[in-house]
C-alpha cells in the first residue's frame, strides 16, 4: 500500500507538471491573460505541495532499511521519476519567470505574439487542480505581483532538489525502465481510469488476433490458387 500511495502521488505530480507545461507554452501568446497567470500560480502551488508530499514519503521509505530488495529497486525507480519530474517543473518555472518578465499584461501597449491560439487554458487548469471549473479571484496586477512569489518558489524548489541529492543516495543510471520503447502506444486507445496493465494485455490480445486472422486469410487464398492451378494442369494434360 505504501507503493500504491507513492505511485498515486507521483501520478498526480506528473499530471500537474504536464498541465503546467501546457500553460507555460501559452504565455506571451494570444491566449495569454490574467486568468492564465492566475492558473499558473495555482497550478504551481499545487505542484509544490505534491512535490513536498512525494518527497517526504519517498525519503521515509528509502531511508527505511527494512524494505526488501525488489521493493527498494521499485522505490528507487519511483525516486528517479520523481526527481526528473521535479527538474522539469523547475525548468518550466524558470521559463515562466523569464517570460512573465517580458510579457507584462498591464502595460498600455501590450505586445502579445500572434500565435493563433484562441481558446483559453481553463480546461487544462481544471484538470491540474482536479476541479470541475476554475474560479478566478485574483487582483488584476497578478502578473507582476506573482513574479516575486515565483522567484521564491523557484529557490525553494532548487533547495529541495539539492537537499534531496544530499540526503538520498540513489544513482540514477542504475534504474532500468520498466516500459519498453513504444509502450505509449498500447494504452492510449481508451480514455479512462482503467489500469494500464490490463489495457496493454487486451491490446496485445486483439493485435494477436488480427494478425492471426490475416495470416489465415492469406494462407487459404494461396491454397485456393494452388488448387485451381493443379486442376488446370490436370485438365490440360
Amino acid at each position, binding site marked *: 500500500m505504501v507503493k500504491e500511495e507513492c505511485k498515486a502521488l507521483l*501520478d498526480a505530480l*506528473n*499530471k500537474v*507538471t*504536464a*498541465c503546467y*507545461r*501546457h500553460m*507555460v*507554452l*501559452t*504565455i*506571451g*501568446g*494570444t491566449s495569454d491573460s490574467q486568468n492564465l497567470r492566475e492558473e499558473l500560480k495555482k497550478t504551481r502551488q499545487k505542484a509544490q505541495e505534491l512535490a513536498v508530499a512525494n518527497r517526504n514519503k519517498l525519503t521515509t521509505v528509502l531511508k527505511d532499511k527494512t524494505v526488501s530488495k525488489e521493493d527498494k529497486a521499485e522505490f528507487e*525507480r519511483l525516486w*528517479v*521519476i520523481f526527481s*526528473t*519530474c521535479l527538474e*522539469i517543473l523547475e*525548468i518550466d518555472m524558470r*521559463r515562466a519567470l*523569464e*517570460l512573465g518578465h*517580458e*510579457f507584462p499584461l498591464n502595460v498600455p*501597449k*501590450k*505586445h*502579445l*505574439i*500572434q*500565435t*493563433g*491560439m*484562441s*481558446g483559453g*487554458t481553463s*480546461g*487544462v487548469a*481544471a*484538470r*491540474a487542480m482536479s476541479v470541475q471549473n476554475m474560479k478566478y479571484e485574483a487582483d488584476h496586477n497578478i502578473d507582476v505581483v506573482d513574479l516575486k512569489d515565483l522567484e521564491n518558489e523557484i529557490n525553494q524548489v532548487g533547495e529541495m532538489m539539492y537537499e534531496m541529492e544530499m540526503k538520498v543516495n540513489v544513482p*540514477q*543510471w*542504475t*534504474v*532500468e*525502465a*520498466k*516500459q519498453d*520503447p*513504444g*509502450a*505509449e*502506444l498500447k*494504452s*492510449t486507445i481508451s*480514455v479512462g481510469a482503467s489500469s494500464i496493465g490490463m489495457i496493454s494485455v487486451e491490446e496485445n490480445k486483439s493485435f494477436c488476433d488480427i494478425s492471426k486472422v490475416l495470416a489465415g486469410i492469406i494462407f487459404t487464398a494461396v491454397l485456393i490458387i494452388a488448387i485451381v492451378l493443379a486442376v488446370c494442369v490436370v485438365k490440360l494434360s
Partner: protein
Amino acid sequence: MTAWPVGDQQWVLSPLVLYGALENTFAKRSLSTRWDPEHSNDIFQWILQRLQITEEEALHLGDLFVKYGYIYPLLEPKNLTLKTDGSLYRFQTPYFWPAQSWPADDTDYAIYLAKKNIKRKGILEEYEKEHYNMLNQKINYKWDFVIMQAKEQYKAGKERKKADRYALDCQERAYWLVNRTPPGMLDVLEYGLDRVTDPNENKKKNIAFYRREIMYYQQAIMKTRVKSSVSLGGLVKYSEQFLSNDPILSGCLPSNPWITDDADFWDLNAKLVEVPTRMRVERWAFNFNELIRDPKGRQNFQIFLRKEFSGENLSFWEACEDLKYGDQSKVKEKAEEIYKLFLAPGARRWINIDGTTMGITVKGLQHPHRYVLDAAQTHIYMLMKKDSYGRYLKSPVYKEMLAKAVVPQETVKKKFHFPVWPPSAPLQPQPHHPEAAGGRGQSQRSRHDRGHHTGHEQAGSQEPAQEGTSQVGSEPRREKTSRGWC
C-alpha cells in the same frame, strides 16, 4: 538576457531588438481577428517599413526569422524559407523562441517523440525513429517518466479547443524541426565547437589578468626572431628546389597510382629498393638531411664511409635514432650497449667526439633516458655533414648510383577510366628529362590526329580534355601549364 551569437553569420539577435521589432505588428493587429496567420508578403512589407532597409536585406532578414524558428510556415513545415508568393506563416510562441537560449533538452525531445507516437499511432519518420531508439538507450533510466509525461501531456492537450490543439502541434513541430533538424536540412543552430572561453565575454581587468599579460609579453620579447625577408627567402628557395620532386605539383613518373591504379610508383620508390629512381638520388644532393633521412641514401653513404674508414659515425647515428624512437622498456639496455660499442674508451667502434660532449654523455648515462645521447648524436651529425658529405657528393660511389638510377617510363594508360579528367599538364620544360621525352614519344599511341603531337606540349594540351578521351597517365607532366585536374 544576453545577445546570442548565431552560427558563423555572426548576427547578434538580441531579444530586445526582436521584441521591439515585433511589437509594432501586434499593436496594429491586436484588434483584428486574432488568429489569422500572416501572409509572407505582409511580413516582408512590414520588415521593410519598420527597419528601413533594402528589399534584399529585408528578404534575407525574414528568411532568417523563419530559419531560426520565430515564424513557421504552415503549408510546408520543413521548408524553412520566406517565400514571397503570399504563403502563410505563423508566429511561434515565446516559449519556443531560440532567443531565450534555453537548451533543447533530450528529455523534452523524448517526450515529444513519445507524444507524436501516440498521436500518429506509431508512425514516425525514419530519423525520428532512430532518435527515439537512441534516446531510449541513452536516457533509459528516465524512460518511465518520459512515457508517463507524454501520456499526461497528450491528455492535457485534449482539454483545449481543437483549433488550439492543431496550432500547438504545429508550434511544437516547428520547434523541433529547428532544434533537431532532420537529415538533409540545414542546422542553423550549429554554432561550432564548444569553446572553453567565450570570446565575447568581458574579462575583468584585475591584477591576475595583468600579471598574466606581463608574463606573456616578457616571454614574447625573449623569443628569437628572424627577419621575415630571410625566412621568406628560405621558404622560396626551398620551394624552388623541391618543386620538381613534388608529385602533386610536378607529377610523378611513372604515374600517379591514385589516378591510374598502377602501383609502380610505390614499388620503384620503396625504402630499400635495388635501384632507386633518379629523382630520389638527385634529391640526396640537395642537403644532408635528405640524404640521411632516406634509408637508401644512408645505405649508399655507409658504403662510402666504409671506404673512408669512418663508418662508425653513421652506425652510431642510427643507433641513437633507434634509441630515441624505440621501446621505452629497452631504453636502458640500448643505452648501455651503445656506450659499450661506441663510446667507452677502447671500444670496438670508437667514435671521435670532443671531451666536453663525452663528459656530458657519460654523466647522463648514469640515468639513461631516450635523449641521453642527443649531444653526442648532434656532434656526429654535424661532423658528417661538414666533412664527409661534401666528399661523398664528389665520390665515385655517388656518381655510380646516379648513373645506375632509373627513370621510369610513363605508363601507358590501358583503359579509358575517367574521360572527364583533363590531362595533367606538365610543369617543367622538357630538356630536364630527355629520357622522359623519349619515353613519352613511345607511349603516344591511339591518339587521333591532333597536330600537337610533337615533342613539347604547349598550353594547348588542354584540348584532349575537352574531347573526352584524356589519358591522364600518358600525358607528359613536365611543362609549365596549369593542371586542369583537381
